[in-house]
């Protein structure tokens, strides 16, 4: 249905957006890729840079600290997104029931999402405070602990505390997507299953969950991509510590760039992280495509 002028317009209309994206994302991406093959350093004085081939990559891939950071990021991502999935679906199921105050609770759920990431990090840092934190006080007064603990000062618990805080902010998205999907589950199907004698638990596993699996899958992959980039919350809550126990891949690259000023080497880490992200992004499109083609079922 396109005339010739309209075909020309196609590119004309796209051009401004493409120009901005090319300048702010595409060119830096190519530049980072180039940097990763050099020994460039950030410095006030112009220093000569050399092309050093794969040297940065060989170093990065054998660097145990970077590997640890990658695994930490993966751990953070899997646990955080997994919890968001479970809690998000559970809350969505709850919000799909009939009860007094349902509208209010549905509205309340959006609040954690609206809290800026940094405020979330700061708030939880205060809650986890070793001396005056609400968590310590509450657990102490309820009798769960006998002494105050340093929740984010302890390498054993710090990561889990970060995960809890991140999960609190991000479960609403999963819950809303799951709720929207739950509302499309045909009531007749559930009634039919109930008449056949299936227990509520059985009905959930064999009808409801498969029905909402498509959209749920898509939003979880999207959250995985986001979680894998985690930086802000770590920066504010723990600064990567204690003992590097919360140092994630993005934070690692950040330090390589801006603390150690090794841009060539940092770029090679960045390219590796970007590569992993790219794989996940392709996974997202695969999931989203299957979702839009296969419908809700």
């Amino acid at each position: 249905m396109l005339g010739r002028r309209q075909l020309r317009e196609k590119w004309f209309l796209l051009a401004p957006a493409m120009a901005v994206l090319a300048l702010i994302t595409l060119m830096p991406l190519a530049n980072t890729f180039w940097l990763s093959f050099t020994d460039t350093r950030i410095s006030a004085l112009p220093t000569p840079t050399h092309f050093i081939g794969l040297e940065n990559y060989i170093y990065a891939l054998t660097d145990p600290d970077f590997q640890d950071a990658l695994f930490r990021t993966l751990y953070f991502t899997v646990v955080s997104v997994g919890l968001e999935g479970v809690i998000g679906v559970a809350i969505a199921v709850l919000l799909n029931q009939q009860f007094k105050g349902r509208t209010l609770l549905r509205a309340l759920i959006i609040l954690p999402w609206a809290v800026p990431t940094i405020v979330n990090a700061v708030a939880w840092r205060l809650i986890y405070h070793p001396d005056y934190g609400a968590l310590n006080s509450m657990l102490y007064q309820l009798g769960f602990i006998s002494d105050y603990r340093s929740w984010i000062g302890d390498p054993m618990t710090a990561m889990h505390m970060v995960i809890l805080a991140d999960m609190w902010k991000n479960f609403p998205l999963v819950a809303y997507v799951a709720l929207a999907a739950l509302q499309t589950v045909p009531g007749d199907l559930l009634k039919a299953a109930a008449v056949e004698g299936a227990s509520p638990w059985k009905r959930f596993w064999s009808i409801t969950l498969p029905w909402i699996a498509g959209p749920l899958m898509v939003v979880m992959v999207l959250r995985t991509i986001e979680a894998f980039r985690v930086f802000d919350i770590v920066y504010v809550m723990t600064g990567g510590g204690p003992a590097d126990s919360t140092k994630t891949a993005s934070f690692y690259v950040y330090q390589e760039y801006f603390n150690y000023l090794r841009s060539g080497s940092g770029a090679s880490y960045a390219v590796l992280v970007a590569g992993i992200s790219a794989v996940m992004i392709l996974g997202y499109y695969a999931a989203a495509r299957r979702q839009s083609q296969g419908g809700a079922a």
Partner: protein
Amino acid sequence: MSDQHILSINNLQKLYGETHVLKDINIAMDKGEFLVLVGPSGCGKSTLLSCISGLTEISSGSIHIAGKDRTHCEPADRDIAMVFQSYALFPNMSVERNIGFGLEVRKVPEAIRKQKVAEVAELLKIGHLLHRRPAELSGGQRQRVAMGRALVRDPALFLFDEPLSNLDAKLRVTMRTEIKRIHQTTGASIVYVTHDQIEAMTLATRIVVLRDGIIQQIGTPQEIYNTPVNAFVADFMGSPSMNLMRGTAVRQDGKIRLSIPTPGGSVLELEDMRTDSSAISEEKRDILIGLRPEAMTDTLSGSRDPGQIADCILDVVEPAGADTYAVINLGGTETIARLSADANVQAGQTVPIRFDLSKVSYFDVDSGARL
């Protein structure tokens, strides 16, 4: 030659990928004509209109409008206006701005614009609605606004894309009359797409019947109705449609003797004395005999033509107010006879039926082509 015609389409082809949706379309339309494109859904009539409008690029051929080659022109530069099936009014604008939009775009001064819009609104009897929004109008009023938007620019050619299909039955008849009235008062040249053959018959000065992207017949409503070029046109045009009975034709003494089998095993014999018997190429052959329901009546109907009378069994009787339709099984098909409303008949009865062969059509059994 194309400059006498308001619209002339030559050898137009349209392909979507491998699919040939319009095949070798040729149409020449005179100024002031009301040309109706009609056919079953999927026949390509809407695509053809879209090609004329320029919203769809054609694959090959040419389109001239008002004597100028517009084959590759933008819709806006074709000197045409279009009334869409969904009316396509701008929901955020008042009726006045909707009608005057084309003038606004062409930077016509506001005073002139207002005056023209007022004139058109007067013609369409919507002068009192000018400050309303489309959402506040009834279906018929929206239809009038859509026509107003087309009329106000006074283009060489108007295109109507199934404009009445969203209206209820009663309003459709009113608007049909309205469109006819506007055509008669303005003398506009109109190309009009519909799938409703009654609309086609009542509105058109000429009808183009399309099927599978091929023009079947172009002609006045009378030509299409009385001398359809093939069994498809005969069947598609007219309501109820033409009865197509299988039978045998024998040439005899310059006359044609027809034998039509009935379910009981007996044979209905009729004699056609008017048709030139050379229409039948052989002494004896199988043919499709086309008779309109009004050529099969009861003996009470005061037809001047005595016709030929034969007894038939009525399968079903359907009173329809002014007429009573009777279904009779003839020539391997359910034919419909149009009896007078007073005919006191019941299903299962055997009744004398008068056959009027003055407008009979003959078609080839295999190709369906008119003989």
